């Protein structure tokens, strides 16, 4: 009987899925792969499926939950950064930019030591990378649910010792709930432990005359809600970050937007300066064009994150605060 030729999408490597995804498992061009187009030899393969083979499970590389943080916090000097802001304001893009600048050795001398969330970082970066086959950079929206943390240990530059950086990412919808009912901030575990609060202002919305006033009002609502909870704001460094600077530059009067943002910073310091000092930053984490480079302004923000908590003695001397670390453990227990 005449042998039929192997289908063009087959591969002699039984592990290759070229018939499903059209790609060589080795990463080769199909014309380069010596196995492509040949039938696999399964005569020696056991009848049982691969799923039944025993495996040893290795540590995850996904986002960390609140309960997974204490062990990291105990291991070395650490900075917990709470990043909050409305949906689409660029929280995850900001985190992705920190990681991408590390990959390029462009974080002002800060260098990579370790991370237990590499898969999470890569997922956050993916849709702004060429491999996504997108034509416009994009960042997948953070799912609702409890805060999750990205983890990276850094040294060098402003990090004179090995420092664990934990970046809290919470869905914007929950921030929006808290703007309407500030008691929700009490449930934000990351706020209780944060060394630095980072509040994002959507540059694109601030630049749009239809949305700029509500954008400014939301910032005031956020600060008011935190101000009425002294344990969340007192003694903490606060970064107010204008995002999407590339999109701001695309509007006719970008100087007015920058001036408006600076006025917001000044107003927040005026209204709430008794509890915290607000510092303004302008970033373009994932620019869409060539007007600014990838991660513009992010290095300055990371330097701010690296600073030790000011007025730590003031916080510790306040009644009923206990040790900061115990405070976090209590916060963890309260949200479990």
């Amino acid at each position, binding site marked *: 009987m005449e042998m039929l030729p192997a289908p063009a999408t087959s591969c002699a490597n039984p592990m290759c899925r070229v018939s499903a995804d059209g790609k060589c498992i080795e990463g080769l061009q199909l014309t380069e792969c*010596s196995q492509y187009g040949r039938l696999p030899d399964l005569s020696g393969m056991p009848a049982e499926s691969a799923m039944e083979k025993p495996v040893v499970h290795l540590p995850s590389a996904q986002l960390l939950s609140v309960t997974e943080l204490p062990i990291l916090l105990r291991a070395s000097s650490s900075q917990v950064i709470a990043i909050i802001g409305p949906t689409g304001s660029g929280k995850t893009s900001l985190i992705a930019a920190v990681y991408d600048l590390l990959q390029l*050795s462009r974080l002002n001398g800060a260098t990579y030591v370790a991370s237990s969330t*590499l898969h999470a970082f890569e997922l956050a970066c993916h849709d*702004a990378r060429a491999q996504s086959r997108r034509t416009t950079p994009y960042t997948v929206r953070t799912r609702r649910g409890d805060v999750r943390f990205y983890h990276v240990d850094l040294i060098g530059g402003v990090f004179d010792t090995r420092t664990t950086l934990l970046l809290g990412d919470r869905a914007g919808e929950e921030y929006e709930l808290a703007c309407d009912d500030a008691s929700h901030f009490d449930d934000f575990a990351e706020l209780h432990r944060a060394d630095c609060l980072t509040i994002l202002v959507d540059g694109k919305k601030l630049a749009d005359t239809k949305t700029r006033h509500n954008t400014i009002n939301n910032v005031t609502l956020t600060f008011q809600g935190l101000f009425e909870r002294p344990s969340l704001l007192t003694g903490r460094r606060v970064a107010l970050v204008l995002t999407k600077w590339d999109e701001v530059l695309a509007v006719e009067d970008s100087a007015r937007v920058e001036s408006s943002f600076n006025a917001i910073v000044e107003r927040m310091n005026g209204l709430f300066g008794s509890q915290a000092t607000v510092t303004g930053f302008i970033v373009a984490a994932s*620019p869409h064009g060539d007007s600014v480079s990838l991660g513009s302004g992010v290095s300055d923000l990371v330097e701010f994150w690296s600073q030790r908590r000011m007025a730590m003695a003031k916080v510790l001397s306040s009644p009923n605060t206990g040790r900061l670390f115990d405070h976090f453990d209590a916060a963890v227990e309260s949200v479990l």
Partner: protein
Amino acid sequence: MTETSIVILGLPASGKTTYLAALWHVLMSRELVTELKFDKLPMGDVKYLNRIAERWRDAYVQGRTALSGTHIVKLLLKDPSGEAVSLTFPDAPGEEFRDMWELRQCEPSIIEHIRSERVVLFIHADRIEAPRWVVDENRVIKRLEKAVDQVTEDDHSNQVEGESDIVDWTPKLAPTQVQLVGLLQLLAGAPLTVGPRRLAVVFSAWDLVADNMLTPEQFLAVNLPLLDQFLRNNANFWDVKCYGISAQGSKYDKDDQVTPCAGAIKAREHDLPSNRIKLVDGAETSSDLTRPLNWLLEKSASK
């Protein structure tokens, strides 16, 4: 006799098997002076080594280790002082290591294979996937389109991103440096850690990148900056040395190749097949593929 095992680590198609094939030829043929020398044949079957060395000598591409599974290689050698040394290392499919990164799991047998304090990490110098961004690709496309438009006057401004074009993330898409850092981090932590390790980083197919005029260490810093940072900042755990190796010297023929390729023809012209090999160690060049292994043996990584 000192008995030592060495971990051979690398993603798929990183050049592990080609190195072993060339190494076995260099040792058996004794065409060159090498730091580690052939002593005697190991007990048991050397069929695997003989077969891969045959393909190497004939200038044929090696078959995928994925098809044949892990092979345990044992070499009985003499070190530079004349002491007998037994080296054991598994030639495991790169897919096993890729699964560790992607699926966060491995087979129990692999754990036994990676328990040594001495590691050789293979990286194909010409297949490093660096991170690339949409904005950078768009910039290139715009330049190309502009050049084409000047000739054809076509309008490309209304291209729309189709949903079917978008590729979802999988760990396999991570840049090479991230996958390698992820792999090494796994080896440094539970359940795979054995404490500090000595790591020989071997850039295979070095001939394809030699025009860069970089030393292997410089090549690591320029092309894999995250990995370079990781190794520098974890020097208490990883004692590192970099090599550039061209074990083939050129492209080899595939099994179904009808007309031999120029690289294979050139390779077969060498009277001594060992002369196809180039190893770069800092500023030094040789054909001695045993140098990385001898360095790994020189002193234990643990204190």
